[in-house]
């Protein structure tokens, strides 16, 4: 029997699973996540997958932390090394005193041996060959066998695992049997051969009753359903595809007309992103709540018509699940590289409203908010998430819905309004937001007007006269400014009076919050502001001015959020500095801690 190293860590460790894509590891890894979540332990899973269908390396990282710090960590206490091709790198990645679980059907290359870690060999392939007849099953079940081994090693609650399997394979007896058998095979092997549990293990906490485990793309789609979106147009693209997949599934469940059995929604898979955004514009022009979901390359293609929507003042909701650019970049890696491209998308003077949700729960709420803002300000609204938020499962507070929610449709003239009024002009008069009432086609003869992307005056008529053109452009700028008070305000944590401020956005939030605590423990006190939207509210300027040094932490090379802050606030550039991490993996608190310390020279 092997003697494990004595580093005791209960509910505070990370493990990584190295797999080959297309072998069924995703469902095994999901099972582990769900079981740990149901044990009441805060957990996160980061799927680092290749842009490929079958045969390339793929990793799944799980971090458990009883205190709720679940941003990505680069320190792994246990590696489940299932991919011989990446053995060398995987073995290297385990921290000293950690463990490596590997398939001992074949001997491990001696050159890979490390003295400071414990190797746990399980003959997974052999066990599956002996236990299962079909070749595909033998491959798939290897994953479930290692889940069984981990159940014993990490003391994952077996009852919880069994219950999840029963739920998952309800009505599929054969599959259920195989999975049960595989789990037990692994579990028994570990009990018989290792000292279980390992010093790194789990201990059940109070059930996370008020939380769910969900990915951001599903939550985004759910938000669109709840906002009442009825037309969606899109073009398949990683990592945004699952937004529309989820929207379709949700609509099929929640949006069928009970009487006719027909759909209260229309989803169009467009021929490209140019068309997808055009369809959203057409649908919104006609009064439906409509949206598209895409990633950076799609935003580039949509640029032309985003300008049309901006200038003709048509509400548009665009979800950008950011991936690593430029060009094709790394489609399965995360980044926050589209901030500037979205803020000023399209030619000419354009400026848009951006929302930056930090987790799947905010994806839900911000998606609803996006529609309200788009209609209130009659303009495109971008919700910028990223691959990490969109495609990974996160533990978030249960979503709530106020049944008294009244959608903000902005100024829209009804039949009765039009019946009463004299002549209708599309862009005049304006309300306090700088927005003029619109009409919807087909409602009333008096509401007819000519929408154009060409120069127009405040009455909606074609113009090439400088003053008339500028008058409209100035109102559009005013309108954008007004939106600063309507978008989600920044979230400012711990106003300590420190001279140092951290500023970040979106999916960086977890890592930055952890870093704030780590820094405090090391004697460095910092304040933290998370930007939730653009245009910036005055409170953003105030926070920056209250701190001598502000470190803007973001996941792109060119400091895009910082640039936007410099351009779009009144603050002095000297107060802002950057900590940039943009390699494609989710941010970890260590990046932030070392980044801040380096800047401070400590």
């Amino acid at each position, binding site marked *: 029997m092997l003697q494990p190293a004595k580093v005791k860590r209960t509910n505070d460790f990370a493990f990584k699973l190295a797999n080959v894509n297309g072998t069924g590891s995703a469902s095994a890894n999901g099972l582990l996540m769900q079981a740990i979540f149901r044990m009441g332990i805060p957990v996160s899973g980061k799927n680092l997958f290749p842009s490929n269908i079958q045969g390339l390396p793929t990793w799944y990282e799980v971090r458990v932390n009883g205190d709720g710090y679940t941003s990505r960590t680069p320190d792994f206490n246990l590696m489940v090394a299932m991919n011989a091709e990446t053995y060398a790198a995987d073995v290297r990645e385990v921290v000293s005193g950690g463990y490596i679980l590997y398939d001992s059907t074949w001997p491990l290359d001696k050159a890979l041996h490390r003295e400071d870690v414990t190797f746990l060999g399980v003959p997974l392939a052999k066990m599956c060959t002996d236990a299962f007849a079909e070749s595909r099953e033998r491959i798939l079940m290897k994953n479930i066998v290692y889940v069984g081994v981990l159940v014993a090693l990490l003391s994952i609650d077996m009852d919880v695992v069994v219950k999840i399997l029963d739920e998952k394979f309800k009505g599929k007896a054969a599959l259920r049997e195989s999975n049960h058998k595989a789990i037990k095979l692994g579990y028994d092997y570990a009990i018989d051969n290792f000292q279980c549990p390992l010093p790194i293990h789990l201990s059940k906490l109070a059930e996370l009753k008020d939380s769910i485990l969900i990915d951001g793309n599903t939550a985004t789609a759910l938000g669109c359903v709840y906002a009442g979106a009825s037309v969606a*147009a899109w073009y398949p693209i990683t990592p945004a595809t699952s937004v529309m997949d989820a929207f379709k599934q949700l609509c099929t469940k929640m949006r069928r007309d009970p009487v006719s059995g027909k759909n209260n929604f229309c989803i169009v898979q467009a021929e490209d992103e140019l*068309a997808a955004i055009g369809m959203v514009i057409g649908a919104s022009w*006609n009064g439906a709540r409509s949206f598209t979901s895409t990633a950076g390359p799609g935003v580039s293609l949509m640029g032309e018509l985003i300008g049309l929507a901006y200038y003709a003042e048509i509400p548009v909701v665009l979800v950008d699940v950011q991936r690593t650019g430029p060009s094709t970049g790394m489609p399965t890696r995360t980044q926050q590289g589209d901030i500037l491209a979205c803020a000023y998308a399209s030619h000419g003077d354009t400026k848009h409203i951006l929302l930056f949700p930090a987790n799947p729960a905010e994806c839900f709420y911000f998606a609803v908010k996006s529609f309200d803002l788009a209609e209130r300000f009659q303009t495109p609204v971008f919700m910028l998430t990223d691959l990490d938020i969109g495609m990974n499962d996160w533990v978030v507070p249960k979503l709530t819905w106020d049944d008294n929610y009244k959608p903000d449709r902005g100024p829209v003239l009804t039949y009765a309004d039009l019946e009463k009024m004299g002549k209708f002009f599309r862009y005049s008069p304006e309300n306090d937001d700088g927005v003029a009432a619109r009409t919807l086609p087909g409602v009333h003869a008096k509401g007819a007007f000519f*929408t154009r992307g060409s120069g127009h005056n405040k009455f909606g008529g074609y113009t090439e006269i400088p003053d008339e053109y500028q008058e409209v452009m100035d109102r559009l700028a005013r309108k954008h400014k007004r939106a600063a008070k309507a978008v989600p305000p920044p979230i400012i944590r711990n106003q300590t009076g420190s001279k140092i401020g951290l500023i970040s956005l979106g999916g960086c939030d977890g890592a930055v919050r952890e870093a704030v605590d780590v820094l405090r423990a090391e004697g460095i006190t910092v304040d933290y502001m998370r930007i939730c939207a653009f245009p910036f509210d005055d409170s953003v300027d105030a926070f920056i001015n209250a701190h001598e040094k502000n470190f803007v932490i973001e996941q792109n090379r060119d400091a895009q959020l910082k640039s936007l802050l410099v351009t779009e606030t009144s603050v002095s550039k000297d107060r802002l500095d950057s900590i940039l991490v943009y390699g494609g993996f989710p941010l970890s608190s260590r990046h932030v801690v070392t980044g801040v310390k380096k800047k401070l020279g400590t």
Partner: protein
Amino acid sequence: MASIKRPAVVHPSLAKNELGLVIRDYEGAMSTLCAGCGHDSVTAAIVRAFHELSIPPHMIAKLSGIGCSSKTPTYFVSGAHGFNSAHGRMPAIATGANAANRALTYIGISGDGDSLSIGLGQLCHAIRRNLNMLYVIENNGVYGLTKGQFSASTDLGSKSKRGEPNQQRPIDPVLLGLSLGASFIARSFSGDKTQLVPILKAALRHKGFALVDVISPCVTFNDHVGSTKSYLHTRKHRLQVVEADFVPKEREISAEYAPGTTTSVTMHDGSVVRFTKVAENYDPTDRTAAQTYIQGSQEKGEIPTGLLYIDESTGDMHDTSATVDTPLATIPLEQLCPGSAALERFQSAYR
């Protein structure tokens, strides 16, 4: 449309349609196109078609892209909702608009640059979706607004104003439509309102994508000797393959078939298209045969015109999407929101 200013007074003798509206109620702003432009004649035909079909102006959505042709929606039905969008992007805007409100009548006006070059992809996919709209291509084989470049519909060997011959093969919208499965395809000539008006009426009543290619000469840049899209060339070489008459539903019961009627096709709303003259060996309901015939005819230098193909059996985008009959845009959002209880139920699967 009007090329010249007219008095505001409506003459009492003007015929009223079922809505009590006269043809002037379907006109638009003054045209700013060149005098003699084919597009203005197409506009006049569109005005007549809408008037005769008694479609309420505010229930019409008129859309376009960019180009001379795309300016024309301003010149017809002022009371309609207009959308002059971006170059080549009108089909997508129309698709979204139609998805949101299926109760409106959609007309898109495009040109050969807008449809066959920059917007070719969108045109093809609107056809594939069988989007319920009338799509008019005002085809003059030249870029007018940018002053005379060849377009994708310029025929091989057709000469520019400077005498330079075109060396690339053209894209023919009719053959394209046939190959992509378009359910209504016609070609006409701006100079022949007798042929064009019934085609437009049938196209507006067609449930699905009605592609109407209208040869519409550009008097400024493409009406010279050597051009195959000039008035003279078109008049000389055009061949009426079929003559079609549109009979609205309400008149069908009493009307008798005109002599020579060979085929009639009943449309979704009960209107009928009667083919009064059909060329020998031609069948406007046989896609493959039509394709062969038209290709052969064009190879001989002829310009086959008429309602060339019709298929009333296919469903439109809403049929394939199984959308409710009520326009989606008119369903109150409260009705589309599943509410808190459903959210609670949904989340039980995310535990």
